[in-house]
């Protein structure tokens, strides 16, 4: 009985501490500017993509519907963290940054597939490969924060 009560207390404490540290992290992320001269840690993650992953070509590069489909997927999966227009949000950095524009499609695909789990970005390999490439097509089609050359995204 005592063991059960103790394990319940311990579990509750563990859950509460992690929950509040998550919320704390989210609050901290809120005040961070979406684009700053200092590279965001997640941009550094792009540099960690292996050479083989970077070299992969987007098989949907010439698919005329890939960007439109990617825009819908972005609204459904990514906009909550990265902002409705990918300008950066409460939890995720801007995807209009120069680091993203200059990144190889294969590196962005690699980040989507592996996530940045220890820093809060989930693994998106649950989306089938073609859908991840559609997302890459959309992200690569985005302009910079100073230009308004995209049509925004659709929220679910």
């Amino acid at each position, binding site marked *: 009985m005592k*063991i*059960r009560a103790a*394990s*319940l207390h311990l*579990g509750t404490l563990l*859950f509460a501490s*992690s*929950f509040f540290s*998550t*919320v*704390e992290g*989210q*609050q901290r992320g809120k005040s961070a500017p979406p684009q700053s001269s200092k590279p965001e840690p997640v941009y550094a993650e792009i540099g960690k993509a292996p050479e083989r992953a970077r070299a992969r070509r987007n098989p949907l590069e010439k698919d005329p*519907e890939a960007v*439109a*489909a*990617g825009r*819908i*997927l972005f609204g*459904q*999966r990514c906009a*909550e963290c990265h902002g409705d227009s990918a300008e950066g949000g*409460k*939890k995720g950095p801007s995807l209009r940054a120069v680091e993203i524009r200059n990144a190889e499609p294969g590196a962005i695909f690699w980040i989507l*597939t*592996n*996530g*940045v*789990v*220890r*820093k*809060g*970005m*989930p*693994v998106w*390999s*649950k*989306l*089938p*490969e*073609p*859908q991840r490439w*559609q997302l890459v097509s959309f992200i690569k089609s985005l302009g910079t924060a100073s230009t308004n050359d995209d049509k925004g995204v*659709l929220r*679910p």
Partner: protein
Amino acid sequence: MLLRKSLIAGSLIFFSAGSFPLIAQAQESPYFVAYDHYLEEPGNLEIEYFSTYGTQRGGNDFHSFWTEFEYGATAWWTTELYLDGQTTFGDSTIFTGLRWENRVRPLKQEHFINPILYVEYEHKNGADKILKEGEGHDVEADFLTPNAVARQERINELELRLILSSTFKGWNFTQNTLAAKDLSNSPWEFGYALGASRPLALKASAKRCTFCRQNFIGGVEMYGGLGYRHHFGLHDTSHYAAPVLGWNLPSGWTLRISPGFGLNDNSHQFLLRWGVSREISGFGTMVGRLLRGRR
């Protein structure tokens, strides 16, 4: 009384989910028993209701049900609370207990096979019939005990699983090995669950749609017991095979259905499962704001 209160509270929470402004489209797996390696997105809460109708030879059929609150604490840890109940036709409707489940992703990146560690604490009574796992020598005849008697048995159980899951060319293959121990002086019991599933289309449509093939995920799962520590094997165990179908709606709702079939004489002949769930984005942030006050 407790059951009625729990059901009312559960229903209120579930249906109030519709009033949350941020609803994410889920990409949920269609499995009922097996788990794959995908965790809840951090800060999101998924509220789920599941139901199982089961046939019973030599007794009355039953309808068991449970509500799950699944929260993505971090990108590598998902925690979940279950409230379970059941109706045995011609007998009674009772609350059968609660479960607290945790799934942890130990590896940072995707691999061909991805392990997930699972720990669950169950506080339930002997009338529990949700059949969320197959373990030990659980057989159909165990469910013949009347509710009034079965509920007297108190069970505090620890369940551990090793989930090994892989995604290849749009297919997900998962294998769960489980070990469960009643915290009283009982031996470890073992079980397994296997699953395979795939979306009906791999490319997303360029138009927003409800009935697109990519919103449907079909598959099959199989699960059963493997005896216990001193009597390991398939002898006197029950096993099931069940096709599964999940439908992820753009509105954030997910519907699942699965007709299951007993594979031997120790198993219920037929189990019909269905479930409905809704995912709420940014739940952690909302709670954080409530606790800290809006700024």
